[in-house]
């Protein structure tokens, strides 16, 4: 187990095609993440914003994060303390934004097996993340390039650039 791993995370189970406008509704885009956070997913999951806790994970269907380039759709999940999103596939634009903001996305073909309210852990075996279900089942995810994990470790591109800035 290394520092990227975690366990006992509570699962919020969502369907496929969760879009950016559901994650960060346009009407609140004028405001900061604290306001967007109250409205995150309100069009599809009304109990999410009030119930989510630090260290929870979202497990979703395919195409998570389709739609806009608004990175608040990824930032809001970091703001709310989500440990990771686990889904079979992501919008390519969302994928880039999430790592740039230090949000861990796990591409897990078997994510659909995971159930609402279940507790899961994540362990890294080399560059392969593995989701460990409460029943012990292990679900392998796609490897994540090291340069993206560097952003997760640093907390996003901005802190990474600061770290690497020549003195």
């Amino acid at each position, binding site marked *: 187990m290394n520092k990227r791993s975690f366990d006992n995370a509570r699962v919020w189970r969502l369907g496929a*095609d969760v879009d950016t*406008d559901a994650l960060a509704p346009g*009407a609140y885009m004028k405001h900061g993440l604290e306001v967007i956070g109250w409205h995150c997913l309100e069009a599809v999951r009304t109990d999410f914003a009030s119930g989510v806790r630090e260290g929870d994970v979202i497990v979703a269907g395919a195409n998570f994060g389709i739609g806009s*380039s608004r990175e608040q759709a990824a930032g809001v999940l970091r703001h709310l303390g989500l440990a990771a999103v686990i889904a079979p596939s992501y919008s390519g*634009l969302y*994928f880039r934004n999430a790592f740039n*903001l230090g949000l861990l996305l796990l591409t897990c073909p078997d994510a659909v097996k995971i159930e609402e309210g279940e507790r899961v852990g994540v362990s890294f075996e080399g560059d392969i993340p593995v989701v460990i279900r409460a029943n012990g089942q292990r679900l392998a995810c796609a490897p994540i390039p090291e340069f993206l994990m560097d952003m997760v470790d640093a907390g996003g591109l901005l802190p990474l650039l600061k770290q690497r800035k020549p003195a």
Partner: protein
Amino acid sequence: MSAAVSQTLAQKLIARAAGRSHVAVGEVVTCNVDLAMFHDSSGPRRLKPMLDELGAEIWDKNKVVLVLDHYVPAQDADAQQIVQIARDTAKQWKLPHVIDSEGICHVVLPERGHLKPGMFCVGGDSHSPTGGAFGCYMFGIGATEMLGVCVTGQIWVQVPRTLRMHWSGRLQHGVSAKDMMLHMVGRFGMNGGQYQAVEFAGPAVQALSMAERMTLSNMSAEMGAQAGLIAADETTLNHLRGIGVAPEHLAGAEQWFTDTDADYEQQDFDASTLSPQVAAPHSPANTRDVAEFVDVSPSIAYIGACTGAKLEDLRAAASVLKGQRVAAGVQLMVAPASAREQAQATQEGVMQTLLDAGATVLPNSCGACAGYGATFPEGSTVISTTARNFKGRMGPASVNVYLASPYTVAASALRGRISDAREVFA
């Protein structure tokens, strides 16, 4: 460039930007950015604090374009503040290219001749693949990634597969590029693209004007593609010459095409059999023929957005509405995509035709499409030329938005129910 390796247009554009003779699909490369576009929402208000925190400056101010289009005209104090930050930052940074309240970024950027075949560009907006209509590799990124571009002038890309959409035949009158795109999104789904490069080709694509090609490239985003490319041809070059792009900027444009023996996946379509398409709530992939929606009666018909309110879109709507008025109980709203296009539409009498039909004309901005300002009222049924109909995007979750072409939106406004413009023309 090596003639030995066959490559797709996407590979050639990325290889050039990466300073390589060729690149292989799947490989991650670092590219030099020729142009970065950002707007009032994703731009200065998000970039400036991060650049300040780093003590960094923009790598090349001549290569950035700032467009104010999302929060203009400002509708409240918060929007006013966002717009003010953009204007103040533009002054402080002495940005040479600022387009303020003159239209939507994806329309005004090419309008000013910023996009030329062979370029590698990024935009702080998801509909940035619009640039692909001009033979540019252009894609959308978020504000933090834009920070990286602003500091280094570079960005990474994983060389995508190419999915080539080959359209034979010719569109019928009353059927447009929007219908082609909705059909493709319906068939391949919202992530059918899997972040690949989609390339549009074939006689039906070559017959399209630049404005119509922009609609195809724009909504590549709705297929989950990274870029939506169309190889430059005489139509492209004539258009660019026509807006004043100097010949030296167009030299070599003919090299940007997909080699016939390159490795790509092709899908074939026949434009001549395509009916007008409508995407039902709440996904652009929820598309079927217009005939399946004749029982739907919209209360609002919206002609707006980068993908639905360009000059040709306004002309299409006017051709349906000419000499007639919209049905009782239908509100027709028109937000021309740019001031220049609106001026041209006014000169041609197109705007008068729309006004005579009962249209309310809104400012040249993203308007209701982005969902940032005025949105549609609770429970309304809307038929719209915009690109997305996600639940809650343009108002409360109870708003139902149907997506369609300007022909179909105009015909639906005229008849008070979703209608096929070909019946109006008949």
